[in-house]
Structures are given as structure tokens and as C-alpha cells.
């Protein structure tokens, strides 16, 4: 039983007048661990979250929680019966209740003594015991979020959903709050699904990534796999900048402007090479180009260059950048993952 997925989404469709917010999405989440649903703004990820929570009905497809079907066409199990916790982007704390009462809100069925004990334990775990008697408007953004998460966990949901939980926090605070919170969530052992549009954040915190665009799931898997072995250009673009260029495959080897790339499984013919900017380095052979400008980006310089045929490429340069107008030859790093995709994708 323990390897049964906590969540199974199967061909789920949710349409609003004029558009399909969720358009045949399918994926499963294993029990435990932190997963991130990543996609650009407006791709339907928040809608999908609301469908999982039961706040909206599905038009087609099924949603199963711990093996039980909770949503299908004509079936919507009420949100209060799903055993799912949801933390809203604005935290949605109840302004008329203090912190302890907010956290205990979902425990109405419990005896007063048990409820008090459960609330105290949660306040302790999320380091907000000193705020028990405080009112929501007195709390900082990070504190409000801890209260909202403690409140959602009070009912011991099998799955905790968080909608863009860190978007309201800024700068260095964001990282500190996020790391502390994720450590607490992991120690709680709950399965967590976090919705975000920030790829770096998603890759940093997730055990499993679910990539979504235009209402569809593009790829699921470990962050490293999704980043280095994307299944499509669209999936690859979600996780960062790309360099895409033409290639010709002959006998398991792709000939590209940057040099030859072994592609044992690709059929012969024209194709496209997809690599990350950090895969390109100056070398002896490859694409001759002229540096147009370089920009400082913290740990490295991002260098723009124009190659033969007016092709624009960018690469990362760790040391001092070349001056504008300097010639450079770009080649692929030997250990860099590269993807060859059919030319028509």
C-alpha cells in the first residue's frame, strides 16, 4: 500500500468560456516528499490546484486521492471531505480569530483538550508558539505563512497544496524563510505539492518536478532529468535559456555548427540541437563568431556573439569576458548534455 501514489490525475479537463485552463492533464505523485508544479503564469496550474482541492468541478477526466476517485465528470467530492490541505497565495487567515484559533479551526470535531494539544504541537513545530495569542494583522508575511501552513496541516491531510507560497516574500528573506519552512514540512512527512512559476526555485526545492504549459503536462521527473534531458523544446524552455540550432544526423552522429554530437538513437536526416548556454565554451574548433557584448550576471558573464550566417548565440564566461568585436570559436563542452530533436518540433 505504501507505494500507492497519493495523487493520480488522469486526462483532467477544465474549461472556462473561451479557453481550456486545464486541457487533458495527467500525472501522479508518490507518497511523501516535495513536488513542484512549474509553469508560466496563466498556464492553468492554479486551476489544477483548485480542481485537486475540490473548489471547482472537472469537466472531464478523473482525480484520485489515495486510490479513491474524488473528481470525475458529474462527480465532485466536497473540499471538506477530500483530506487535502490548501495554503493560499494570500494565506487567507481568518481576521476574526487569533493565531491559535486559526490553527485549530479545522479541528472542530476534536475534544477541547486534544485540540489544544494538537494546536500547541503545530505551533511548536513551525516556531510560532510565541504568537499563539496574536492577531493575523500583527504578523509579518513569513509568520502569516507559517500559521497558514500549520492550519492546513492540523487536519493531517494526505496531501498539502501550496499556491505560489514564496511569491509574497522578497530577497534574502525569501530564501531563509523557504529553507526553514521546507525543512519543517519534510519533518512532518506530508506529501507536498507546490505551485510556482520560478524555475530556479522549483529545481532547488523539488524532489519531483511537474512541468505544465497551456493546460497540459509536458514532463514529470527529477529536476536534474528535466533540466538536462527535457522531452521537448517547450519543456526545456520552462527551466531556463536554450540555444537551438540545426543539425544533420548521419549514422548515429549529429553534425552541428558546434561540432559532432553522438546520437545513437536518432534517425538519419535533418534535426535540431538543443543545449543550455552553459554547454558552450570557447574552443579550438566549432562555430566562429564575433562578440557583440557581455553582461555581468553575478557569478559569471553572459556573452552575446554573432556567428556565421548572422546566428546569435549566448554563452557563459567564468573569467574576464572578451571585448566587443573580439573573435571567438564556440564548441560544446564534452560532458554537457545535449538533446537532438526532430526538425519539425
Amino acid at each position, binding site marked *: 500500500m505504501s507505494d500507492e501514489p497519493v495523487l493520480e490525475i488522469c486526462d483532467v479537463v477544465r474549461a472556462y468560456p473561451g479557453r481550456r485552463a486545464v486541457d487533458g492533464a495527467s500525472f501522479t505523485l508518490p507518497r511523501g516528499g516535495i513536488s513542484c508544479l512549474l509553469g508560466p503564469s496563466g498556464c492553468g496550474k492554479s486551476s489544477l490546484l483548485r480542481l485537486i*482541492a475540490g473548489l471547482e468541478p472537472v469537466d472531464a477526466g478523473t482525480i484520485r486521492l489515495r486510490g479513491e476517485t474524488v473528481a470525475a465528470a458529474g462527480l465532485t467530492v466536497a473540499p*471538506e471531505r477530500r483530506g487535502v490541505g490548501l495554503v*493560499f497565495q494570500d494565506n487567507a487567515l*481568518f*481576521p*476574526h480569530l487569533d493565531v491559535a484559533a486559526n490553527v485549530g479551526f479545522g479541528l472542530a470535531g476534536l475534544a477541547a483538550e486534544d485540540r489544544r494539544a494538537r494546536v500547541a504541537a503545530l505551533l511548536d513545530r513551525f516556531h510560532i508558539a510565541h504568537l499563539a495569542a496574536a492577531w493575523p494583522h500583527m504578523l509579518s508575511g513569513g509568520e502569516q505563512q507559517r500559521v497558514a501552513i500549520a492550519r492546513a496541516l492540523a*487536519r493531517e491531510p494526505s496531501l498539502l497544496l501550496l499556491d505560489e507560497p514564496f511569491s509574497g516574500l522578497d530577497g534574502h528573506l525569501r530564501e531563509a524563510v523557504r529553507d526553514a519552512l521546507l525543512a519543517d514540512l519534510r519533518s512532518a512527512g506530508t506529501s507536498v505539492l507546490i505551485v510556482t512559476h520560478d524555475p530556479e526555485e522549483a529545481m532547488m526545492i523539488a524532489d519531483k518536478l511537474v512541468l505544465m504549459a497551456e493546460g497540459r503536462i509536458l514532463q514529470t521527473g527529477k529536476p536534474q532529468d528535466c533540466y538536462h534531458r527535457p522531452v521537448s523544446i517547450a519543456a526545456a524552455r520552462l527551466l531556463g535559456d536554450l540555444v537551438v540550432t540545426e543539425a544533420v544526423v548521419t549514422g548515429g552522429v549529429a553534425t552541428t555548427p558546434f561540432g559532432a554530437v553522438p546520437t545513437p538513437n536518432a534517425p538519419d536526416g535533418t534535426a535540431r540541437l538543443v543545449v543550455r548556454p552553459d554547454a558552450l565554451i570557447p574552443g579550438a574548433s566549432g562555430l566562429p563568431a564575433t562578440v557583440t557584448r557581455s553582461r555581468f550576471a553575478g557569478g559569471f558573464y553572459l556573452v552575446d556573439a554573432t556567428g556565421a550566417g548572422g546566428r546569435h548565440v549566448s554563452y557563459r564566461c567564468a573569467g574576464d569576458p572578451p571585448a566587443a568585436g573580439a573573435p571567438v570559436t564556440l564548441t560544446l563542452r564534452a560532458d554537457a548534455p545535449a538533446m537532438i530533436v526532430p526538425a519539425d518540433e
Partner: protein
Amino acid sequence: MALPLIGVVLAALGSGTADIAARDIARYALTSAWLALLVGFLTAVTGTLAAWLVVMYRFPARGFFAWALALPLATPAFALAYGYADLFDVAGPLRSWLRAATGHDLPFELRSTGGAAFILSAAFYPYVYLAMRAAFLNQSVNVLEAARMLGCTGGRALWRVALPMARPALAAGVALAVMETLADYGAVQFLSVQTLTTGVVRAWSVYGSTVSAARFALPLLAAAALLLWIERASRRGATHETGKARWRTLDVQPLAGVRRWLAFGFCLSLLTAGLLLPVGWLIWNLAQTSPDWVRLAAATRNSLLLGFGGAILTVALATMLALGTRQWPVAARIASLGYATPGAVMAIGLLAPAGLIWNLAPGSGMAIAILLLLFAYAARLMAAALEPIDAGMARVTPSMRHAARTLGRGETGAAFAVDLPVARGALLTALLIIFIDVLKELPATLILRPFNFDTLAVIANNYALDERLGQAGLPSLLIVAISLPAVIWLTRRIATARPGV
């Protein structure tokens, strides 16, 4: 809730012949329009000036005036009319003394359209004052500072930016004052000013003609619809004036020298005109009367019964509507149609359905009549209750409601656990507003009340019509005494409320 309005239109189109000529209706309508114009102008000027002084400047007793200027809301307009009429009557003590002492008389006649306009303005200026005060408090300091940066002096910034921004509030406040003017029966009837509302009641009570009454009511209904539209349209304009900018305290300028006493004097004279002078005179006169305590006690009991009953029924219906209209916003608009409709018109509209019920269940007169009366109050005051309740529930975001659902509450459970507790202050506000309005209500009560069922307002009116002003004073004062604590609580709550919180 729209039933009485349909009733009026149907009755007016009825085949029965009217006993009152169209010429009379036009004459009454003209008086109503003139009165509305005068009251609109007077309340706009006095209410705006008072709000501006209290918000922008520091002068003696400013903190007191901030809430006390709204206190005339506790006095029914007819009580002011009794007080002033007695004080300034040609044969009254003040004028008799003036003639004897100086040989001259005051150059005005209170029982005139002008006199009625003065009294109604003294009673209704708080509507403008409260709306303008909120608007001035809500204005963004950033906008005022931006005007300063663009070259306006402080005074010019106020004139070119603050006042135009508050125009929607002015329109809304004046519309309320004019609505109340058109709906007033007790004061104008006593001052012998023939308005459409007195026409409605007279057509019904003297001629017993529902058709005539309904024909008087039709222009009132049209005017009410127009005012309601103005008020709502202004409110839409008012929503963007608060903006999303962070709220900062306005810099209050201290007034110096004679100007601080002018400001003090102006505020004091408003409060005196709307409350202290007429109510003080009525209290002074009490000594010379021998009240009929038994009748007063029964009327007090009836007034409280109707006040509490009306408040509870209206607020309960308004709460259900507020919760329900999240799905059907149109329902709230239909239910609010009754607002601005004078009570007399509402009562006439209910007479036909009432007749049907009485014919069906003849023995149930008393209970049915009271229920109808409560229904008339609810129909007339629904919007007044809906407005604060809606505002209170606006604090509940959709995500809070959804959070309650994911935390184990059903739809109704979420309403009881989140919406109602968050809006509890607003619910209490609505209860008190309706309670006060029902206590002061006269024409609908006159028309729909069961036989021998007197309220304080009704016996005050009856005494006054018999020119027994001393006797009319006590029930009027009892209304003031009952509603004053509620009004004080309400206005202090409004005065201390920080916008944007």
C-alpha cells in the same frame, strides 16, 4: 421585496376614477421638487463645510463635533417641526415677547416651504456630513502631495483636487437627504406644506382612494428611482477614490485666532439647529403637560416591538441576501429597489395584497397587519441594511471562504464560521440603523397599522394634528431618548473607524 412597487403601478393604472385632479398632483409635485431643491442645496453646503472643517482643521471641540454632528439622525424630522413651530409660531412665546419688547416681528413664516426646507435641512444634513467626512478622510495624501509638487498651493490643491475627488460622495449624500425629504410626512404635514407624500396619505385617509394615492405615488416612485440611480452611480465613482495607495494620516492644520472660533461656532450652530434647540424646547415644555402615561407606555412597547421586529427581520433577510447574492448579484439589486421609496408609497403598494390576505383569513387581522408592516419596513430599508453587511462581508476574501471549506466546513458551515463572525460589527450596525429608522417611521405605520395600535410616532402625529404640541413633545422625545444611545454608538464607531483597515 419589489412587490409593493408593482402594487403601486398596478393601482395607479387601475380603472377606478381618481378623486384628485391631475392639476393638484402637478401642484403637489412642484412643491415637492422645490422643497427637494432647497434641502439639497442647504444640506450640500452645510454638510460639506462641516466635514471639511472637522477633517482638515484643528479648533475647539473638534473631536466632539466629529461624531456629535451626526446626532440629529436620532431626531425624527417631525419632532424638529414641533419644536420649531412652537418656538417660532406667530402666536408663540418667542414672537409674542419680541413684538411686545421691540415692536417688530421676525420676517419669516415657519409654516411655509422655506420653513420646511430649513427644518428638513437641519434634520438631514448629517447624511451629507457623514458621506463627505468619509470622502475627505479617505483621500490619498499622496494625491494631495502630488498636486503640491505640480505647483498648487495648499488651498488650491484642496479646491482643484480634494473637492472634485469627493464629488461622488457629495452626490450620494445629497441624494440620501433628498430621498428623505421626499419621503417625509410628519414634518411637512404639520407645517401645512402640501407635498406628494402628504398627498398620498391624504388621498388614502381622507378620500379612501387607493387609486388617487397611487397616482400621487407614481411621480415619487420615478424620483426615487432617479435618486437611487444617482446615489449608486456616484458610489461606483467613489470606489476608485480610495485607491490602493497606502493610507497616511492627513496633516491637520491648526486654526488661529477668530477663525478657530468661527469654525467652532459653525459646528455648534448646526448641532443646535438639528438637535439642541428644538429638542431642548420640547423638553422645556414638558413641565406644562400632563401626559397620558398608559397610552404612552403602550405606544413605547409597540414602537420597541416594531423596531426590534423590523430590525431583526430586515437584517436576517439582508444577511441571507448578502450570502446568497454572491451567486446571484441581480437579486440584491432587485431587493434594494425599495430603498428611496417613501414609506407611504410602500404602504399603498401593500394595501392590495393586504386586502387579499384579509379576505382570505378574516380573523387574523392583528398578526397579519403587523407582519405586513414589518414587511413594508424590510422592503423600504433593505438597502440600508444590505450596504453595511455587504461592506462587512467584503472583508472575507474568496480564499478565506475556500480555506474554511478545505478545513472541513460545508458551504453553510463556512458562512457561520467565517462570514458572519467577520461581519458581526456590520450586522450590529445594520440592526441599529434599521431600529432607529423604524422608530422614526410615520406614514407607512399610519396606513398599515392595525386599529388601536399606536406607536410613539403615530401618537406624536395625532397630538400635533390636534395642535396639542405639548403632548406631542413627549412621544417625540421618547423616540429621541431611545435612538440617541444607538446613534451615539454608531457615529462614534464611524468616527473612529480608520479607512483602509
